[in-house]
């Protein structure tokens, strides 16, 4: 945790505040349809499976698999200086929703599609916690 945090700070839209509040409490929050049980991400006000308005926020198990990934070898933002190469992945959670994040805790050469991962919470600043993923 640091006050001179140099990476981009997300600016949440009104619909995604519960996600960021959840992350602060080290919970990975997802939206779920109360009618069809579909889970999705990023947040919206409608079930992306059936169009229902009858939706709720639930905690994810935090477990999933890497659907795909890329390795950044070029510096696009000064906040990442010294961390190249780093892995950005799309994680497919057990509940079915997919989410973009970083894979940490293994060398980038070992990141693979379909690798099993689970969430870890990185407290970036006193106001911001980022859900990231590490191999199970």
């Amino acid at each position, binding site marked *: 945790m640091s006050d001179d945090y140099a990476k981009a700070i997300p600016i949440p839209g009104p619909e995604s505040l519960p996600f960021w509040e959840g992350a602060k409490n080290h919970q990975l929050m997802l939206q779920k349809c109360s009618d069809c049980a579909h889970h999705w991400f990023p947040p919206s006000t409608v079930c992306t499976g059936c169009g229902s308005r009858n939706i709720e926020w639930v905690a994810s198990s935090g477990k999933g698999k890497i659907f795909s990934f890329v390795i950044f070898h070029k510096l*696009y933002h000064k906040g990442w200086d010294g961390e190249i190469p780093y892995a950005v992945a799309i994680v497919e959670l057990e509940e079915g929703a997919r989410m973009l994040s970083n894979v940490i805790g293994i060398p980038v050469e070992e990141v693979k599609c379909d690798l099993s991962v689970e969430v870890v919470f990185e407290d970036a600043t006193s106001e911001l916690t980022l859900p990231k993923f590490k191999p199970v």
Partner: protein
Amino acid sequence: MMEPSTHLRDKYALVGAGHSRLGKVPGVSAQGLLEEAMLNALDDAGLKTQNVDGLICRGPDEIYTFHQVMGERLGIDASFSTTLTNGGASQVMGVALAAMAIDAGMASCVLVGYGRDNWSRVHANKENHMRGSGRPQQMYGMEFGPEFGYYGAIAAHGFGAQRHMHDYGTTREQFGAISVAFRNHALNNPDAVMKKPLTMENYLAGRMIVEPFGLFDCSLQTDGAGAVVVTSAERAKDLRQKPVLIKGFGTGNNISGWFNGNNMTHTGAIQSGKTAYAMAGVGPENIDYAQIYDCFTYMVLVQLEDYGFCRKGEGGEFVASGALGLNGAMPTNTSGGQLSEAHVEGMLQVVEGVRQLQGIYGPERQVPNAEIGLVSGHGGNTVCESTLILGAT
């Protein structure tokens, strides 16, 4: 269910094509470059700005109502005019929209074009260069991306490439075959930005940018513009060039998201191609050449599959077989494409698609016996696709 529509087939034509100076063109705005391309396209057709009553265009995305800016600069009042905002799929879609507008009686002669000044704006200051883009910050999401170090179209397309490699065993050497083939085409195009030969060894030695993409998987950063003129096939008979018929067009938009389902390995080109083939009354076996939107090598490979030039998963073998050469199974991006000619968001693909059927090239660049060609546009956060099928007269 959508019914195949055939009443527009061969009814409208592209009667002129032009482009501006390409590459590093300092001291000219995107608007100025587009004027250059539009006047060249009108000259090609033997028409004047006074003959134009439709204007469909796109420029830097932060300019409000870009078509109005261009109309003012060109001195054109238009009965039909709009700016499209479908990213790299806009330019092919503009031609389709022009045909639809003329068919609806809303215009008779439509100028379609796109201009950009990306090389100039990215090199205007160091900070732009660092961000790797001259785009306004508002174009990126403010959450679920930058905080994880996720930047740029390169990463979005890289996810697709990586998943394709995982599912089908596609290799970087196969992506490299695309870069090498397009560079060979560019060497026969005096207007192409890239002038030096590119070998597989050069490709593999290119520095990694966002893996699995290295330097030579990426399209060029260029200033430039392209434009075409659309009118009825009837009127086209009296104009300067041999008309190029619009046989069919289609669109497909996987706007539920690139990350959704298998959209990143089964793109909008599947739907877009299906609609365009049905309108044109042809199939992939009838296509003599393809001009494919090539922001990154992978997008060429996956679109070739999705348009049916080879089976799903076999794009790697297909491109590595020499298929993309002038005498190959599917001559592709015969001007060098965005990887080696210039990146004008698909507009130069339309221009080259037209010129191949105008029959203006010598044997070093002309696809032998070309009668029917396919042009693709792709973009808008990687999920929008548009397709044109063109025919010789």
